[in-house]
């Protein structure tokens, strides 16, 4: 498992991802957003721990047509 990125590395990454996403985030905004981004990354890490077969497909709408009864 790769080492956890430092806050400085994360801020650099956020700046680059934001630019690609069409957002021009100031350093001040990056500082504010960091805590939320770290929260999202923690959630993503937990989601990644769920084993899935390679055939797994994403959720589709409407929800599964479960037979009643």
């Amino acid at each position, binding site marked *: 498992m790769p080492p956890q990125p430092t806050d400085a590395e994360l801020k650099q990454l*956020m700046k680059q*991802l*934001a630019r690609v*996403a*069409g*957002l021009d*985030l100031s350093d001040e*905004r990056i500082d*504010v*957003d*960091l*805590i*939320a*981004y770290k*929260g*999202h990354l*923690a*959630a*993503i890490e*937990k*989601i*990644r*721990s*769920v084993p*899935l077969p390679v055939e*797994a*497909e*994403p*959720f*589709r*709408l*409407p*929800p*599964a*047509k*479960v*037979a*009643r009864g």
Partner: protein
Amino acid sequence: MDLTRRDFLATTAAVPIAQALPTASRRTRPASAASPTALPYISLTEAAALLKARRLSPVELTQAVLDRIERVDASVGAFITVTRDEALQAARAAEQEIVRGRYRGPLHGIPFGVKDTHYTKGIRTTANTPVLLDFVPDFDATVVAKLKQAGGVLIGKTKLPEFSFGSAGEGGAFPDAKNPWNLARTPGGSSSGSAAALAAGLLTVATGGDTSGSIRNPSTFCGVVGMKPTYGRVSRRGIVAISWSLDHVGPMTRTVADNAVLLNVIAGHDPADDSSSALPVPDFTRALRRDVRGMRVGVPKPVQLDGYHGDVLRAFADALGVFRKLGATVFEIDLPDTAEVVDDVQQIVRIAEAASYHEPFLVTRADRYGLTSVRRDVEAGSLITAVQYLRAQKVRAKFTNDLAQVFSRLDVFLTPGMPAPAGGRIDVKQPFRRMFNVCGFPALVLPMGLSTSPEGLPLGLQIAAKPFDEEAIYAAAQAFESATEWHSARPPLAAD
């Protein structure tokens, strides 16, 4: 020629309102509708019977609700916009129609409110954010259109935290609502204003939105009945979005029967909403007469309720006792392993979809967001990659299929509505709320008790079921409500 209210009442026998009420209503709530001051707490079902029989005028009912808003809402703060003039105009129109024999059904002449995320033609729709402060839609949300078509009287637009983010909070364009049971405590959210208004007698019925529990959380904290229907059951067209695949719109009321009536009105296929279901909509009120003997009732294992408030656990145990006494079979179930990460899945799906919705606002008016965490959260959500989002959606599919397997062995699944009374600790390991947004299964909360520490705050019971089986929920909820008196409890300010 327009009829006056005096003309309207003159067309009917001069029967006192209390005499026109069903016997059961007089027995459980003797003061209900016996005087104009009691009208704001009348149930939809009771009011509809009186309106249909022309023993109550829509104008009289609407005026009573508006008068109470004038008197009480300064302290509760349930509304962003009160549509007083439009309401009285709609009430007068309903009165004219009813007296001429054109009664439309149980919503005709009934005062309702909608969360201020619902588009209302010609009336500002702010979502409590400075970003949309001047937004006046040129069409009604499908839900609003259905309510108006049914003859309902729009009283106003109810409070929420900015853009429906979070369960409560200040920093939006307007201060959040307060809990009528204790004005120092949160009403929960994000459909805070709808729940607070119902508890304070400021509306007869209301609607809300639920992406992370936002109907069920405030309904629990304010002691009312809130239904998050199956995803696709109610149109989302014309609703300010958080997350398209998690957002639900649903009815909020003071009784289970009212809730079923309201869902009858707002449910159904909407060609303008691609996620709207084409399945037929049953008459949900029929389920209210179902017997729950032999009903298979699943419940969580005690370990899954670790961290829940003692009052909640006691009330929940009592509720299970009621179901056993009614003849239901109550048994513990194992949740799928994926339930461990379902809130994380919900977080990523929600914020990635929210970031997409907010993209134009972030680009053109980011400086207009309120002093909340919304801008921060959606900016950070914009940085989630497509692969990360799709990974969450894959786990979501697995969880939904896993839970469907579990639910195939039961009719309803019961949990506490919230882990603690309003203002208590709610960050438990398994809160049982977001999971039903992730899978889209229906879930309702209704009152199941009052806390002792702190004293006198509502506690809620959540009832979930298989997709599109809201009838099982209403059957169980009605049986519980009929066997208990919790729905009759009123906050101290009810006397104001």
